[in-house]
């Protein structure tokens, strides 16, 4: 037996109070009797006939002590592990994230958690109407079994659950669980997890009846938490592969890092991972064709899922940029310097816009008669179908805010940038505002249909921006962001558990996906679909997709620092002020304070009855 609030044992200090009360008990009524002899005989005989009568004088004391003890026990909220349950509705949330694959528990954390959850199922008081729901929180929350008292079904649901390579998506599962028990005052959520869960602050103010069953003991893990491939800035013919390797142990670890291209080992290096730190690693590799780089960290640890990561690397393609302008040398130079592969074409006339020949079109204060279908930087032009309401003019609007977390504004600052004039528009639904004046957004990035658009609401020549260093950086960012190849490269790297999305340029009806395990899944695509979506990426690795005649590959990776940190948490932080402590008990905890409180009441009633019987 254990106690959820052992602090309540301080109430045990009230036990001596009863003794004091007993000492101060009411006076006996004094009566003169002819002789006490008969009474002595009587007492002697009754004592002789009942051995427990030795305690006769202390019955009340004992009852009161018992009563208090029961109340104290109830306050301490005792629970037994794996015994008969009485919660009417228990929602079992089984964490199936990658960290649950850790083998510090035998055979693994997930198996352990499953075992405990099964024990909880066994303890379900189905005869008393107890019900259970099984939720598996992997890449997404999945209700594997809706509320039932059928133990076999619950057991089947738990046994069918599979651990994934995805990061924890517990908030979603808890949200589902919470809605299930919201109107059930007797409902309880039982979370079986290692506690490697990021943000749960949304549950802070809700009275979440959550019982956290912690699994996991060790934190022996090192893993790849970031993996990216870029053109090598020093040598355009080569590729630079950037890796971040996290070591969550308190001791440095020696490891070997292997790099393979399309399954062929091309490089290896020995690396020392500093304790509780992230170590960067860089590979430079030449690449002759599109393919998949796979990095493998060879190290002794408990979690294998994060020791491998893949990235799809496409050969760099030239970026064809068309600048339509009446003359803007700043922009011209910035575009020309935007990247090693930029092929800049200039046109003073919008009629030069040729669909499909250019990856990015820059409209600098020129409104074309026919709007290009490709990705677009639109400077100081405002097609009326982009914005609702009228488009106005602003005089020297101040820049009050910008969003430098967006990739477009990486390393971009608008300090000491002044604008003479700007267009005033309402924030559109198709994009997000990256820079604001008080009255209007000044910079918007978004997607209109299959078209990616960066809209600049002012003429750069009527501002001090081109004179600032942030301008060429922004243009380089914008070209990179608008380059379809970059977008494609991003698309080809998904986190396991997240859906792979590919915009379709031409209609496709048939597709097949080959998973990392070699299984081929045929997919039917609706003819009017604008994108191809594949959601079953719970297993990390390289997925190969055949879209019509098109063959491509994408990689699903864990790449999650929080998930790599497999140190089991003792508490779940729900926001800053709320915590859920892990029950040290491995099994289900079933609280018994109600029974103790009930027994206390029974004792009290019994005492009352006794009192009246003896004095009636």
């Amino acid at each position, binding site marked *: 037996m254990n106690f959820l609030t052992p602090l309540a044992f301080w109430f045990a200090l009230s036990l001596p109070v009863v003794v004091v009360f007993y000492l101060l008990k*009411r006076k*006996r*009524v*004094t*009566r*003169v*009797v*002819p*002789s*006490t*002899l*008969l*009474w*002595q*005989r*009587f*007492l002697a*005989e*009754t004592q002789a006939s009942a051995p427990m009568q030795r305690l*006769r004088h202390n019955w009340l004391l004992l009852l009161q002590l018992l009563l208090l003890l029961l109340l104290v026990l109830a306050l301490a909220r005792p629970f037994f592990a794996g015994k008969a349950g009485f919660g009417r509705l228990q929602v079992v949330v089984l964490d199936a994230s990658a960290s649950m694959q850790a083998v510090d528990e035998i055979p693994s954390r997930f198996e352990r958690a499953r075992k405990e959850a099964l024990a909880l199922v066994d303890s379900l008081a189905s005869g008393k109407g107890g019900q259970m729901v099984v939720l598996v929180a992997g890449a997404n929350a999945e209700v594997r079994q809706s509320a039932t008292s059928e133990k076999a079904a619950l057991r089947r649901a738990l046994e069918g659950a599979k651990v994934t390579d995805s990061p924890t998506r517990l908030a979603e599962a808890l949200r589902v669980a919470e809605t299930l028990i919201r109107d059930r005052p007797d409902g309880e959520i039982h979370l079986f997890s290692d506690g490697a869960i990021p943000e749960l602050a949304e549950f802070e103010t809700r009275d979440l009846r959550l019982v956290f069953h912690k699994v996991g003991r060790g934190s022996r893990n090192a893993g790849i938490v970031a993996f990216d491939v870029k053109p090598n800035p020093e040598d355009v013919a080569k590729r630079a592969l950037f890796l971040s390797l996290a070591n969550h142990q308190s001791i440095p670890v020696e490891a070997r890092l292997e790099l393979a291209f399309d399954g062929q080992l091309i490089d290896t290096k020995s690396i020392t991972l500093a304790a509780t730190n992230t170590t960067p690693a860089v590979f430079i590799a030449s690449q002759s064709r599109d393919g998949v780089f796979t990095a493998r960290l060879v190290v002794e640890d408990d979690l294998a899922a994060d020791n491998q990561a893949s990235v799809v690397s496409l050969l760099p393609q030239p970026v064809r940029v068309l600048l339509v302008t009446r003359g803007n040398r700043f922009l011209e130079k910035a575009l020309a310097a935007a990247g090693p592969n930029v092929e800049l074409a200039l046109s003073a006339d919008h009629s030069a816009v040729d669909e499909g020949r250019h990856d990015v079109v820059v409209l600098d204060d020129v409104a074309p008669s026919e709007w290009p279908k490709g990705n677009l930087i639109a400077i100081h032009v405002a097609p009326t179908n982009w914005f609702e309401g009228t488009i106005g003019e602003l005089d020297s609007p101040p820049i009050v805010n910008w969003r430098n977390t967006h990739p477009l504004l990486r390393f971009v600052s608008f300090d000491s940038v002044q604008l003479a004039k700007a267009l005033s528009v309402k924030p559109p639904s198709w994009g997000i505002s990256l820079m604001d004046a008080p009255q209007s957004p000044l910079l918007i990035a978004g997607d209109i249909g299959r078209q990616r658009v960066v809209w600049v609401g002012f003429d750069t020549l009527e501002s001090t921006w081109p004179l600032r260093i942030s301008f060429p950086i922004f243009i380089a960012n914008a070209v990179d962001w608008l380059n379809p190849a970059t977008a494609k490269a991003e698309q080809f790297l998904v986190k396991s558990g997240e859906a792979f999305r590919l915009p379709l340029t031409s209609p496709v009806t048939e597709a097949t996906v080959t998973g990392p395990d070699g299984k081929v899944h045929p997919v039917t695509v609706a003819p009017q679909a604008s994108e191809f979506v594949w959601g079953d990426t719970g297993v990390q690795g390289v997925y190969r997709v055949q879209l019509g005649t098109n063959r491509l590959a994408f990689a699903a990776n864990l790449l999650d620092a929080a998930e790599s940190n497999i140190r089991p948490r003792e508490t779940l932080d729900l926001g800053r002020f709320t915590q859920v402590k892990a029950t040290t008990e491995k099994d289900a905890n079933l609280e018994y304070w109600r029974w103790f409180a009930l027994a206390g009441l029974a004792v009290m009633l019994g005492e009352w009855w006794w009192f009246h*019987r*003896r*004095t*009636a």
Partner: protein
Amino acid sequence: MAGILTPQILRRLEQFQLIAARRAKSSAKGERRSRARGQSVEFADYRNYVLGDDLRYLDWNLFGRLDRLFLKLYEEERELPVRIFLDASESMAFGLPAKFDFARQIAAAIGYVALCGFDRVSVHVFPEPQAVQESELAGYTHQMAIRGALRGVRGKKSSLQYFSNLTALRVGGVADFNSAMKRGVLESRQAGVAVVLSDFLDPAGYEPGLMALVGRGFQVNAIQILSPEELDPSTFGDLRLVDSETGNLQEVTFGRYRLAAYRQSVANYVQRLREFCQARGAHFFSISSGEPIEDLLLRQLRTSEMWG
């Protein structure tokens, strides 16, 4: 009749006579058969004439038939000393009616029957009254005088005085049952009928006292008087009981549910006393002071052949 007994009872009592299982041993003449041979109308035995015998008692008819001299012997009739041991301790003052009132009614009745039968009645009232203060001295002397007068009563004509003396008795003090019995035994020159009127609730026990009476040859009649409250307590709750005589404290928690156990306990006590008496040839009666006295006097004592 001083109100101690109703005239109806007295009339009934006059018909009774104490039955002595043993022959009277008193030296005084009375109306009881005794072992002593002497003058009476009751023929007892013959014996051979020896020189010097009174010739008036020769059986001349036998002499004529057998030609031998026999002397006719007659039983001497003696009185039967009746000793009444009356417990006048503090504990006897309890009960409704008081146990002592009940006891002295019995004493009066037995005394009356004895007096009617020309037997000598002596009442031993114990304990001795205590005079501790000057102001109580008059009462003390009066009590002592009454007790002295009760020591020897004879003749039916003394019964009125006997009754008024009994009525004037006051209770008080701590009884020492055993020593009172032993002293009574020592004081009695002849054994006779002994009637012990007490509640037999002496912490020191009753066995030595009763044994002394039986051993002296008394025909013992033990009459235990208990008050209804003692037999059937009506106060419940957390009680601190004070012994009226010894002042002992006894804390007890009592409720209706223990009433049966208490009754059983009292019954056990009475039964032990009864067995003790019966084992020694003594009569034993236990009566509640709340019961009608007629039942004891006219039925119980009669059926147990104390009188008839």
